[in-house]
């Protein structure tokens, strides 16, 4: 069978599996819909959390980012894993003991305030939609590259699959499909990584291969030398300032711990001690991919340089032409020697604009003005993981597997996000705020309806991504770090934190972070971007860390001057701190 047929078979079989699981695990009550009835085994929950968390960005983009930024990409590796330590130590056990359905539930009850609940819902919805648009887009990209469908069709098929199991199965269906999706995605990620590691270093464990030798020289030293020779900075040292590295890492860690779709997964295990252990398992499953990614990135960069630099275009490997065909690689022969030269800097001005004609070597001609540097080739970093099996000449079934893995990573995250959006609408806004008299049956119907509506909005955003959405993924983490995380943390650890303080802190942190990111990143203000304009050299990506400090400061100040926390709420906090008697995840009233 050819690769395309194999890809259809792999992706189709994985879809059939997800839908089968959805039919088997339909949700019958709101408790099953929101938190899978609170009966999920900690290991299964760990796997589901890993799939929930690892998005199209982790699967497709991260190794590419590492390949092209080397040490500077450490912020993502540490930031997106270190957050689980915060989650396991500071949030998950207490939220599980609190034992309701959503993150706004906790904030609303702990701060005895509908306003606090609604503010939390607003934060949650902004965070989740920012994140979800990227996932639907990821599904579309995989479909268009591997199955040669238009991106729109890819998004629509993805919507259909998520619809079937998120709307039918709720959290119960999502949990068990995520377990399956984790298995698909990790197998798809590790298989080519192991092959490539063996090919380059002879060591089948990529984590060790990265520290091994290739052709008598340590891989990293070889990569550093090759890059420096070409005029790049070395792979193992970075170019970002230390304060910015610290701010971005902290914002990503705290943001990860504050992401509602991750937190809510810990509502589904039976006991408080399970919540702690489950966070550990989740991180083991995540670490499998995250410690492999640096190896994939480094090998890919080395492979890429060796296959294109100083090679005639006419003799370039087939994958160069395939990816050029969909515009993610572009070559402009500046010195007209028919040979590809790779060097630092953009090869031409602006985004690649193909004229539709073929050049003297058969390349797709560009209408862009060439730049003065010696670089002739543009490569989109997102292709590294997807092209890796082709670069290393792996068999067609590995390519098909990677396609199924990319789709699994995107769908599992999209489903988790859709669930928290629908739960916050049907539970927090309808049941707990505007229509407390509705029955459980109506609430369940509302949950399904809002999940369906959220899928439509997500699909629309996937097909018509607002221009700067890709720019503002930082927004999701920054907002979670600046709003939800501090509110939950203070809710558990500081009994003196009151309603006024928490609401002021959330709003303050949110506004400051939103304003800073918008100022530098959105097209409306077009604030001059660059380290010399940044507050203490902290980039918009890292500003969530500052937003968090602003939140703490405002909250402490306001709480100091307003009425203290009522005795009943203090007693509730005492109760949350003790693990005994977590019981079913169901509201007491």
């Amino acid at each position, binding site marked *: 069978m050819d690769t395309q047929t194999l890809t259809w078979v792999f992706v189709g079989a994985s879809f059939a599996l997800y839908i089968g699981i959805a039919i088997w695990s339909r949700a019958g009550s709101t408790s099953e819909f929101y938190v899978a009835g609170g009966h999920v085994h900690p290991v299964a929950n760990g796997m589901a959390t890993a799939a929930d968390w690892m998005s199209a960005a982790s699967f497709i983009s991260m190794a590419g980012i590492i390949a092209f930024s080397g040490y500077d990409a450490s912020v993502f*590796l540490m930031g997106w894993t270190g957050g689980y330590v915060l989650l396991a*130590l500071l949030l998950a056990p207490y939220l599980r003991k609190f034992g309701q359905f959503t993150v706004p539930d906790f904030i609303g009850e702990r701060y005895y305030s509908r306003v606090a609940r609604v503010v939390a819902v607003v934060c949650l919805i902004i965070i989740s939609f920012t994140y979800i648009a990227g996932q639907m887009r990821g599904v579309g990209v995989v479909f268009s590259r591997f199955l040669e469908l238009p991106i729109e069709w890819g998004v629509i098929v993805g919507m259909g699959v998520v619809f079937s199991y998120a709307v039918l199965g709720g959290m119960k269906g999502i949990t068990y499909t995520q377990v399956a999706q984790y298995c698909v995605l990790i197998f798809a990620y590790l298989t080519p990584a192991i092959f490539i590691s063996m090919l380059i270093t002879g060591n089948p464990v990529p984590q060790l291969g990265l520290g091994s030798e290739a052709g008598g020289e340590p891989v990293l030293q070889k990569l550093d030398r090759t890059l420096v020779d070409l005029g790049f900075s070395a792979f193992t040292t970075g170019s970002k300032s230390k304060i910015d590295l610290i701010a971005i890492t902290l914002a990503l860690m705290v943001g990860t711990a504050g992401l509602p779709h991750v937190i809510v997964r810990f509502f589904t295990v039976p006991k408080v001690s399970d919540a702690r*252990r489950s*966070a*550990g398992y989740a*991180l083991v499953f995540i*670490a499998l991919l995250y410690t492999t990614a640096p190896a994939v990135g480094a090998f890919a960069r080395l492979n890429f340089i060796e296959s294109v630099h100083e090679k005639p275009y006419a003799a370039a490997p087939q994958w160069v032409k395939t990816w050029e065909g969909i515009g993610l690689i572009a070559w402009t022969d500046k010195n007209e020697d028919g040979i590809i030269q790779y060097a630092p800097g953009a090869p031409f001005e602006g985004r690649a604009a193909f004229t539709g004609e073929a050049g003297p070597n058969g390349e797709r001609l560009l209408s862009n003005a060439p730049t003065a540097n010696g670089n002739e080739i543009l490569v989109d970093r997102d292709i590294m993981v997807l092209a890796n099996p082709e670069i290393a000449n792996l068999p067609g079934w590995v390519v098909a597997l990677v396609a199924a893995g990319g789709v699994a990573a995107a769908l599992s995250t999209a489903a988790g996000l859709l669930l928290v959006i629908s739960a916050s609408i049907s539970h927090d806004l309808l049941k707990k705020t505007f229509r407390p008299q509705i029955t459980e049956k109506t609430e369940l119907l509302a949950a399904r309806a809002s999940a369906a509506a959220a899928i439509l909005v997500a699909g629309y955003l996937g097909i018509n991504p607002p221009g700067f959405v890709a720019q503002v993924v930082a927004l999701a983490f920054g907002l979670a770090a600046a709003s939800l995380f501090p509110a939950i943390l203070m809710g558990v650890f500081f009994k003196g934190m009151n309603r006024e303080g928490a609401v002021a802190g959330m709003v303050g942190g949110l506004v400051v972070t939103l304003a800073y990111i918008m100022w530098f990143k959105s097209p409306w203000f077009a604030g001059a971007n660059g380290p010399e304009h940044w507050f203490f050299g902290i980039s918009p990506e890292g500003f969530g860390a500052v937003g968090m400090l602003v939140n703490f400061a405002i909250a402490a100040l306001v709480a100091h001057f307003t009425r203290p926390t009522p005795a009943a709420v203090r007693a509730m906090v005492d109760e949350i701190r*003790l693990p*005994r008697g977590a019981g079913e995840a169901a509201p007491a009233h």
Partner: protein
Amino acid sequence: MNASAAEETKKRYWRENVKLLCALLAIWFAVSFGAGVIFVDTLNAVHLGGFPLGFWFAQQGSIIVFVVLIFVYAARMKQIEKRLGVGDE
């Protein structure tokens, strides 16, 4: 157990919990922000196999330590809860 003794146990449990998690968070900070960012250049002079040590902490070591920290916390909390009789078993 009378009411004030139960109150005392709860307070003790919380104190021990906070002490433990501060210690673990200090390690969390040291391996990531410490070894991976602040002291990375100094550590890079040392090599671990083919890895400069600081780079290894930033891309592999810190993640491994994070996993260990969570399991240590879960196990130690279980011990504390058993000793004080406040567990969820």
